[in-house]
């Protein structure tokens, strides 16, 4: 909503850390409390996952990890004890998230390029439609989409969770904003004068220029797809689930088995935690950049 920041000005803004506002001890204390509260639930899932259920119901509660993690993990993966095939779930989610990520980034860059640097009829109407649909809740289209899935024969199959997610309005919007500022018109003109046709311009000029933004869009898309629950819950069955559906199925068993449920939960967040550990800086950059641009 705010004005689009030109990439050059971002670096110069770094020094802006207000010289007259140093963080005092109170600031650190407050921030530390927030950090502890942010981390605790995740730590807690590990604590519960590494005990048996007797320890979970102990009084006073046990606050440190135990030795049962491996045992619990084996319980999650042995489909004999629970009716969830966790290996299938992990594999499914990996396939879906990877496919969706590449498709979203590629299609968004293509369309974003056209919206940013080309003139054509209907451009404004299309862009407005895209922005408007970003404000529409997913639930609005869910029922016809389900009917479509029946007709396509995709129910309970992975295409049902891949197909509808292949493109996002947000992706196109983001890539358009990025390409407007990151790809100078002179460069495009020069490439055209040299006789490049549009496809080559896209491949050799636009794509390299937007690579950082594309990586961020990819990361965010991957995380969103990995974490998606509402739509997979509707179209997939517990026999061929995504990780989120599998974990929720663990939780809706017959007995209260917190150790099992939170072990599954812990496994389901672990891949994203690892990605975050290595690429957290980029993710933060993406979110903050999107805020200024969005």
């Amino acid at each position: 909503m705010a004005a689009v920041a030109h990439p050059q000005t971002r670096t110069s803004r770094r020094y802006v850390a207000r010289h007259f506002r140093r963080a005092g001890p109170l600031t650190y204390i407050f921030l530390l409390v927030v950090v502890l509260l942010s981390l605790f639930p995740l730590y807690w899932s590990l604590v519960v996952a590494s005990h048996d259920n007797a320890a979970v119901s102990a009084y006073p509660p046990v606050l440190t990890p135990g030795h049962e993690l491996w045992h619990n993990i084996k319980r999650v993966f042995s489909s004999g004890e629970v009716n969830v095939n966790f290996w299938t779930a992990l594999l499914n989610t990996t396939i879906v998230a990877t496919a969706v990520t590449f498709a979203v980034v590629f299609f968004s860059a293509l369309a974003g390029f056209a919206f940013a640097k080309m003139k054509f009829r209907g451009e404004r109407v299309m862009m407005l439609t895209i922005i408007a649909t970003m404000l529409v809740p997913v639930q609005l289209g869910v029922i016809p989409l389900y009917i479509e899935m029946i007709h396509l024969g995709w129910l309970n199959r992975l295409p049902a969770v891949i197909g509808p997610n292949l493109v996002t309005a947000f992706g196109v919007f983001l890539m358009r904003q990025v390409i407007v500022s990151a790809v100078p018109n002179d460069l495009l003109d020069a490439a055209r004068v040299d006789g490049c046709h549009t496809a080559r311009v896209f491949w050799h000029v636009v794509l390299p220029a937007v690579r950082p933004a594309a990586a961020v869009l990819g990361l965010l898309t991957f995380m969103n797809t990995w974490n998606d629950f509402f739509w997979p819950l509707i179209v997939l069955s517990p026999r061929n689930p995504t990780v989120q559906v599998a974990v929720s199925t663990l939780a809706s068993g017959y007995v209260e088995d917190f150790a099992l449920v939170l072990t599954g939960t812990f496994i389901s967040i672990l891949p994203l935690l690892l990605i975050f550990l290595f690429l957290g800086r980029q993710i933060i950059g993406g979110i903050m950049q999107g805020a200024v641009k969005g």
Partner: protein
Amino acid sequence: MRHRLRRLDVKASPYIYVAPFFLIFIAFGLFPIGYTAWVSLTDRNLLDPVTHFVGLQNYTDLLHDSYFWNAVWNTLAIWVISTVPQLFLALTLAHLLNTTLRARTLFRMCVILPQVTSLVAVALIFSQLFSKDYGLVNYVLGWFGIHDIYWEAGRISSWIALSTMVIWRWTGYNALIYLAAMQAIPDDLYEAASIDGAKPARQFFHITIPMLRPTIIFTVIISTIGGLQLFTEPYLFEPLHYGATGGSDRQYQTVAMYLYEKAFAGSQFKFGYASAIAWCLFLLIAVISAINFLIVRRIRSAV
């Protein structure tokens, strides 16, 4: 010939580049949205091969459906008690992060970590923390003489528990967005103010907040759209006993859950009725967003 090809390239390219996106977007995005409107005017049911046009019948039924109004009320209540503290907390957090800090990146990473956690994980971890007998929340409250709250059973207590989940997951995200906007405020504004003798608190209320107005509007709208669609946290609050009904007394059933209940849960497949719910949800989001926009827009004049 070459010239012709070039003109064709310039003319046709934009459509070719937009086409893959738009074809998929129309098929799975735009068309379903429009088609929901039609389905909502019929008595379509997956189990019944014959569909009749019923006009506005679904909507009039909905207006007399106490479960629906219960869900609307729950959704709004949970949304208010999760969004208002969350945005204030985020603003404070951003203000504190916007200082010369040691380990800046580490703080930011920790703050945004909940956002990486899936809704399912949040719901299940917090359900355990809030469980009546062995939950850590009740244990800690016990130190203060408050014993054995049955969080899921009470109306207000369940709303508080669910709001806690939302607050936990989204505060850091909003804080980072505010932080980005704060760093974009030109330094001269603050310098001029300090020369005029304005204290930091005054600067915060008279420079930072008004300059953040577009961003605050953005976060409020985003929180409205997201918050009113609340589904996963309440759906998995008591996964063992209740799914889409939201508790024994529907005390925390949201509109999205009611839609799910009518359309998919328990094999009801009342697609016509559920489509009407979907449109009402959309309407609710639009109205509340508009109201919020009008309120937040006044920030500049109010301060």
